């Protein structure tokens, strides 16, 4: 059974086809990676799935419901959450507050109760804080809880963003280059974290440049080139696929 299915998704910018007719599905507990050379349309695809861009064609279906172009906060309510390639952390808030904000849907209630500091409001806030501390422990940031998020290292911020997304208890987690800019140790930590989240039954959709990481943790790989799907399958078959090899070598030639 497919949790998230992408059906013929496409978009054009000023007449240029950025993504064209891409389809695939993600099942619970499965890690699906989208790879491709720079400019292949991976992030554009991600932005369409997560409601940032409105697709020109195709559908995004979550648990049988058409959620195409639905606003990100409504997608969050339905169990889809994402992280960002260029980090979207609440810089001036503490690390703990960042994760607590991930509990927003669970902890928010009447504004009046919040203004008056009623027991109901305090109870909601306390539950969220306990959950957030536990999550910080899971990503190894418990000792940085009271620090301002802006002061963390890049790798820590990546983990913080994942912890915040996990606070939503998502069914589908979209990770946009979670290991970008991280060193080998940090990449391995994130690697373990992703595998752990998937093992708990969350469907994971991943965009990543680090091929070793992708080959190691993915169950299924979708390859994009020039906005189109050129291959799909398990890591072993994809890495042997001539079209994939050509796309990557071609991209390297162009870059060199």
């Amino acid at each position, binding site marked *: 059974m497919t949790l998230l299915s992408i059906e013929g998704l496409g978009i054009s910018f000023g007449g240029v086809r950025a993504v064209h007719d891409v389809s695939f599905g993600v099942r619970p507990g499965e890690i699906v990676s989208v790879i491709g050379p720079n400019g292949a349309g991976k992030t554009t695809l991600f932005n369409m799935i997560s409601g940032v861009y409105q697709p020109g064609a195709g559908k995004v279906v979550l648990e049988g419901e058409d959620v195409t172009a639905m606003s990100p906060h409504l997608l969050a309510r339905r169990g889809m959450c994402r992280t*960002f390639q260029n980090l979207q952390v609440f810089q001036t808030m503490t690390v703990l507050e960042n994760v607590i904000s991930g509990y927003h849907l669970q902890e928010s209630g009447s504004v009046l109760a919040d203004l008056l500091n009623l027991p109901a409001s305090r109870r909601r806030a306390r539950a969220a804080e306990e959950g957030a501390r536990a999550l910080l422990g899971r990503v190894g940031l418990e000792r940085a809880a009271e620090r301002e998020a802006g002061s963390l290292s890049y790798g820590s911020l990546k983990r913080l963003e994942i912890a*915040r997304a996990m606070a939503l208890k998502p069914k589908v987690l979209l990770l946009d280059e979670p290991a970008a800019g991280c060193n080998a140790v940090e990449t391995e930590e994130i690697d373990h974290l992703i595998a752990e989240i998937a093992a708990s039954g969350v469907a994971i959709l991943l965009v990543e440049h680090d091929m070793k990481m992708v080959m190691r943790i993915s169950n299924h790989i979708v390859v994009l080139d020039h906005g189109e799907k050129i291959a799909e399958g398990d890591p072993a078959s994809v890495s042997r696929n001539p079209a994939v090899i050509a796309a990557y070598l071609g991209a390297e030639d162009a870059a060199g």
Partner: protein
Amino acid sequence: MRLTVKSATLLGLVALIALAPLFFPSGFYYRVGALIFVNGLAVTGIVILTGWAGQISLGHAGFAGIGAYACALAPVHWGLHPALAVVLGAGVSAVLAWLVGRPILRLKGYYLAVASLGMGILISMVLNNERALTRGPDGIEVAELGLRAVLKDAGLELSNGQFWYFLCGLVLLAGAWLALNLHDSPTGRALRALHGSEVAARTVGMDVARLKLQAFVISAVYASVSGSLLALQNKFITPDVAGFMHSVEMVTMAVLGGVGSVFGAIFGAAVLTLLPQVLTVFAEYEQLVLGAVMVLVMIFLREGVVPSILRKIRGGGE
């Protein structure tokens, strides 16, 4: 540490309100103090809207005007008790803020500043021109609140200045308490979050437009109550209360003291309320000095006076 921001602010305010009169050379300073508290209340609302939610309003004096004229008109025309007129004004302001904010706050960017500017000017024009109702630019008298007489009967005799000083002080305390509650609550956290990154706020399920609207409505109520208190203690009000300069003054006070901090904003209100009193000797230069102070603060203490100093103290202590 987390408890101290709230309790330190509240304790500081209580101490200030209670102890300041010991140093007053004359009864006149009760009046200045009451004015500081009234402005502090409006500016606390600006902290919620601008300091936390990151939205800018240039028409908040319009809400102060509604609060003030509710106290002037409702008791005369509908026989409403002045205290209830305060509530009525707050209600009207809240509804108006909701109506103006709802379509505007769906948009990204600084549309609220422009829309609220227009709204403030409109309210000011209505107050100036609807002479049959508001008596226009000459102003209108406001009914006596009557609470001082009640207190006198109960054995507590206060001069007019003292009464308004302590009443406005108490209302400011209540306003600061509510704002500080909000800061650490789920709603307050969400407001600060969307200020940091709207994209991330949406991603974690925050209804950004709705949260901004809540902040706008709450801050409108603060401004309205502040306008009501001003009208009631002066027993007279002119449309200037809703004027553009008053809106700018509110934002300036908040930015000067520290728009992210309740205590800072009240400090800013105190400075900018006192300054004209001090500068009466060279009244022509008042605007000049004000402008210079603002420029210097923006260059050297960008977060505002109080947060910048606190940061220096904390940084030096480590």
